C-alpha cells in the first residue's frame, strides 16, 4: 500500500515539475524542445507496454508514429491550401488531389485516423504475425523491415507524400499561428496532459488482470495457451494499443516541431526510441518515459557540442545497460532502494523477529 502512495506522490511531483516549474523556468525554445521529448515519450510509453510488459521487441514504432504524423500533416496541408492543391503537389506536377488525401480534409476524420490507422495496421500485422507464432528476434526484424519499407514508400511517392522533405510549412493550426509562442506553449501543455493521461491509463492496464496476463504471455506464451487463453489475441491488442500511442505521439509532434518527414520515423529513430526505453528501464512504464526524455535531451545537448559523438555514446550506453543493468535506470534505482531497505530492515529485524520480508510486487 505504501508503494502505491509513493507512486502517486512521485506522479504528483513529476506533474508539478512539468506543468508548473518547467513552463515558468524554461525559455520558450527549451520548453518547445521539452514538448518534443514528451511527444517521443508518448511513443516510448507504447514501447514500454509492448516490449517491457508484453515482450514484443518492436523496432518499427516509427511506422505508427509516421502514420499519425502524416494524418495530422495531411489535414493541415489541405486546410492551408484552402480547396487548392497543397504546395508540394503543385511543385511535383500533381494535377488532381489523390483519392487517398480526400478524407483528410475533414478535421474529425483526420484526428480519428491519427489513432485508428496505426491501430488498424497493428491489428492486421498482429493477426498475421502473432497467429503464426512469429516472435522474439523474428518479430523484431520484421518490424524493423516494415519501418525500412515504409520510408522507401514515403520517399518514392514524392507527389503523394512530399518525398524526403515530408510535410512542412504549416500556416494555420486550428485557427492559430503554429509558430507563435502562445501556440507552442499551449501545445506543450496539451502534450504533457496527453502523456499524463496515457501514463495513468497504461498503469491501470498493467495493474489489471489483463496486465498480469500480458506478463504471463511474455514469460511463457505456450503455457498461457494451455490455460485457455489465446496469446495471439493478447499480443495483438497490446501491440495495437502501443501503435495507437505512437500515432498520437506523431500527430502531436507535427504542430510542436512543424514537420513530419521520413527521416523522423525510419529505422534509426525507431531504434533510438527502443534504446531510450532500455536505458530508462523497460519493465517500468516510468522508465520508458524517463529514458525517452533524458536520452533525447542528451542527444540534443551532445549534438550541439560534438556532432556525431552521440551515436557512439548511445551505442556504448545501450551495450552497458543490456549487459550490466537490463532493468535500466529504474532497475538500478530499485536495487539501490531495496539494498538500503534491507540494511535498515536488518537492524530492525534483529530487534523484533527474524524472517524474510515479503516483498510486495508492484507494477510500475
Amino acid at each position: 500500500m505504501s508503494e502505491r502512495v509513493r507512486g502517486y506522490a512521485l506522479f504528483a511531483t513529476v506533474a508539478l515539475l512539468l506543468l508548473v516549474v518547467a513552463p515558468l523556468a524554461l525559455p520558450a525554445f527549451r520548453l518547445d524542445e521539452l514538448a518534443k521529448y514528451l511527444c517521443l515519450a508518448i511513443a516510448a510509453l507504447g514501447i514500454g507496454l509492448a516490449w517491457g510488459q508484453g515482450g514484443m521487441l518492436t523496432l518499427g514504432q516509427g511506422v505508427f508514429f509516421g502514420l499519425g504524423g502524416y494524418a495530422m500533416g495531411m489535414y493541415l496541408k489541405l486546410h492551408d491550401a484552402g480547396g487548392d492543391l497543397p504546395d508540394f503537389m503543385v511543385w511535383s506536377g500533381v494535377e488532381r488531389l489523390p483519392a487517398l488525401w480526400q478524407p483528410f480534409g475533414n478535421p474529425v476524420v483526420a484526428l480519428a485516423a491519427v489513432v485508428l490507422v496505426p491501430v488498424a495496421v497493428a491489428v492486421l500485422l498482429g493477426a498475421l504475425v502473432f497467429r503464426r507464432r512469429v516472435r522474439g528476434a523474428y518479430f523484431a526484424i520484421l518490424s524493423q523491415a516494415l519501418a525500412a519499407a515504409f520510408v522507401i514508400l514515403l520517399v518514392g511517392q514524392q507527389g503523394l507524400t512530399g518525398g524526403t522533405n515530408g510535410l512542412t510549412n504549416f500556416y494555420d493550426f486550428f485557427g492559430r499561428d503554429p509558430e507563435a509562442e502562445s501556440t507552442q506553449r499551449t501545445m506543450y501543455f496539451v502534450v504533457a496532459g496527453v502523456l499524463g493521461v496515457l501514463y495513468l491509463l497504461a498503469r491501470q492496464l498493467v495493474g489489471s488482470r489483463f496486465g498480469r496476463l500480458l506478463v504471463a504471455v511474455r514469460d511463457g506464451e505456450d503455457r498461457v495457451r494451455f490455460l485457455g487463453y489465446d496469446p495471439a489475441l493478447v499480443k495483438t491488442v497490446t501491440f495495437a494499443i502501443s501503435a495507437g500511442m505512437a500515432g498520437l505521439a506523431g500527430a502531436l509532434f507535427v504542430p510542436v516541431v512543424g514537420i513530419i518527414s521520413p527521416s523522423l520515423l525510419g529505422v534509426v529513430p525507431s531504434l533510438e526510441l527502443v534504446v531510450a526505453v532500455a536505458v530508462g528501464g523497460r519493465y517500468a512504464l516510468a522508465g520508458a518515459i524517463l529514458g525517452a526524455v533524458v536520452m533525447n535531451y542528451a542527444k540534443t545537448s551532445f549534438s550541439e557540442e560534438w556532432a556525431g559523438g552521440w551515436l557512439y555514446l548511445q551505442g556504448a550506453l545501450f551495450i552497458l545497460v543490456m549487459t550490466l543493468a537490463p532493468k535500466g535506470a529504474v532497475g538500478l534505482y530499485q536495487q539501490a532502494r531495496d539494498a538500503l531497505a534491507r540494511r535498515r530492515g536488518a537492524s530492525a529485524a534483529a530487534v523484533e523477529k527474524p524472517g524474510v520480508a515479503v516483498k510486495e510486487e508492484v507494477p510500475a
Partner: protein
Amino acid sequence: MSEPPVRGAGRAEERAEAAMSEAETAGRAEAGARELLEIRGLQVVFDGFRAIDGVDLTVRQGELRFLIGPNGAGKTTLIDVITGLTRPSAGSVRFAGTELVGRKEHRIVRLGIGRTFQTSVVFEELTVVENLDLAATFRRPLWALLRRRRGVSDTVAEALETVGLTDLAERPAGVLSHGQRQWLEIGMLIAQRPRLLLLDEPVAGMSRQERERTGELLTTIAEDHTVVVVEHDMEFLRRYASQVTVLHEGRVLVEGDVAQVRADPRVQEVYLGRTAEEAA
C-alpha cells in the same frame, strides 16, 4: 448431466458457469455415455518415426487412470495430441463426443481439458495468487480482465487450500521449490474446473515427502475429477493407482488394474524388469 456427484453448493454454482462452455453444449447429446475420452486408431509420425502407432484408449467419467511405459513409449506425445500441441497423422480423439483433432490448444482447454507439463512452468514474476487467478478467469472475455483484481475469489482460495499453498499466496512463484511449483500447476488446473486433467509425471524429481503429499492431493482431486496421470515411479503407482495402461513403442501393451499389470510377463519384460523384482 453425466457429472459425478459434486460436493458443496459453491461447487455446483461454479459448474453452472462452466456449463456455458462449448463442451457441455456439445456433450449434452452424449449425456448418456459414460466415456469421456475416446482415442481411436491414433498414429503420430515424426520424420518417419512412429511415436504413436495405433493407440486405442478409453477413459470413463470419474476415472483415475495411470499411463506408464518406458522412456520414449509415447506417453507425453499422447497427451500432446489430446491437448492439440501435436497433430496426429491418423486417428481420432473424441472428448465428450467432440472431435479434438484439428482444434487449437486454447479451444481444447475451453472444452474442459487441463494439462501439466513434465517440466513445470509457472509464471515466476506473478505471485502464487496471481497465477491461480489467471488460471481461474480464463473463461472471461478479454475486456472483463481490464479491471484490477480485488481480493481472492472463492475458486482461487479453494485451490490454494487444496494444494496447500495458502501461506505462500502472496509470494512470487519464482521463489517456490520444485515440488511447490508442481502443486501450484495442479492448483491452476483445479481452479479452471476442467472435466479432464492430464498430469505428465507430477512427482518426477520430488522428495519422498513431496511424493506422498502429491499422492494425497491426487486422491483428493480424483474424487471429483477425471484424471490421467503419466508416471514412472513404481512405488507411487502401487500406492495410488487403480487402473493402469501400459504404453510401449507407441502401442498399448496391457490395460488393467495394478496387480494385473504388474503380474503380466510382457510388462515385466519391456518395462518393469528390474524394478518389479526390486519392488516385489
